């Protein structure tokens, strides 16, 4: 004969098991619903197609060591930093083509970011290093309003280490690359008066052993007259 207290205990445990089973089933259902909701990738906002606008690329030519303006129609974002990056990306795509007059491998992915900052006082020569700019580079935000939008700007171009590593070494070819970047930025964003370079976010002495990347370049000095040598 089963004692009475054991019968009661058995019934209580059975009821607890049933209740826990129900609770677990409900938790599983909720988790499943959350998972399904997270995987919902249906577009909720139509993509914005940027209108094509004319951009001026200052293209280098190794054959005669010249820089020439080339007008291209490109869809460009409104944000100045993103726009500068897109334009430089197009310039680097030109250099990466097999029949490029200034062959440099890498293409558009060689420019990681372009930061636009209020320019410091004009510099006439190389500065003392990274401490010159007191501001910390911050990528400009769409619609952002600050003093830089009305005054001269410093563009900080962040290149990839793979681009620097694969760039052909030489005084002329490296100088042409640097000047074409500076001139292209100034031609499309006239407020950009100074340009500095980083490689993977760090300062680097030279591009590929020759062109100085520690100094601040004055963009206006890089803009060539038609077909001019740097």
């Amino acid at each position: 004969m089963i004692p009475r207290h054991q019968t009661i205990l058995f019934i209580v445990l059975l009821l607890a098991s049933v209740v826990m089973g129900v609770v677990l089933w409900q938790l599983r259902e909720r988790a499943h619903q959350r998972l399904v909701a997270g995987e919902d990738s249906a577009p909720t906002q139509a993509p914005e197609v940027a209108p094509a606008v004319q951009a001026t690329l200052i293209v280098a030519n190794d054959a005669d060591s010249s820089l020439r303006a080339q007008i291209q129609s490109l869809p460009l974002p409104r944000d100045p930093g993103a726009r500068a990056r897109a334009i430089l990306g197009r310039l680097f795509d030109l250099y990466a083509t097999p029949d490029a007059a200034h062959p440099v491998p890498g293409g558009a992915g060689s420019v990681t970011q372009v930061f636009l900052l209020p320019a410091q006082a004009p510099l006439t020569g190389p500065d003392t290093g990274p401490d010159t700019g007191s501001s910390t580079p911050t990528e400009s935000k769409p619609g952002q309003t600050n003093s830089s939008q009305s005054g001269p700007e410093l563009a900080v171009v962040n290149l990839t280490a793979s681009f620097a590593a694969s760039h052909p070494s030489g005084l002329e070819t490296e100088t042409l690359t640097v000047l074409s970047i500076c001139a292209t930025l100034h031609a499309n964003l006239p407020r950009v008066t100074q340009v500095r370079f980083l490689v993977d976010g760090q300062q680097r002495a030279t591009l590929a052993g020759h062109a100085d990347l520690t100094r601040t370049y004055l963009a206006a000095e890089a803009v060539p007259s038609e077909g001019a040598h740097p």
Partner: protein
Amino acid sequence: MAASHMAAAQAPPAGPPARFLVVLDAAHGGDDPGGRLSNGQAEKTFTLALGVRLRSLLAARGIQVVTTRESDATVNLNRRAEVANHSNAAACLSLHASESGSGVHLFVSSLAPAEPARFAAWKTAQAAWVTRSLALAGVLNSALLHAGINVTLGSAALPAVDSMACPAVAIEIAPDRDSSHAVTAGLDDPGYQARVASALAAAILEWRTEAARP
């Protein structure tokens, strides 16, 4: 750091220097191979060989030469400028080589010309000499063209040259190419090397003559 250095700025000479001395700076060396040339040779090897050849040509003409390196040694950019500045040289030539472009590329500092000062900032010491450097580049240009070599003139930011207190030109030797951009004489062509070195030596002789002119 170099920014704290001051270069004793000799005023650009009004008359001929007491002695005519040339500094030859074979770029790169040691840990820094420079560019890779098409025949697999490192730029540092080419520039050293060219420097040795040019030194011999100049010495044979009675010109005193100081070099920044005589072997495959690492010499930093500040040391190269120090050698040039201690030599009180009449001409400083920084030798480079590249497979891109055509002929010889002559670069002077892109620093804005400045008046000579008693002391000059280390990184911009060349500013007081830019005008003389342009004149030297003109003489080199004439001699190279006379030797039938294509020449490209330009200015660039060059850390070693920017710190030199002497007429300084960076010389980059590239393969000789025809109008269709086909190579007519590569960097490994001994005849081409000899032609370039002879033209540079002739230019230095002409520069000495100009410096001695009242």
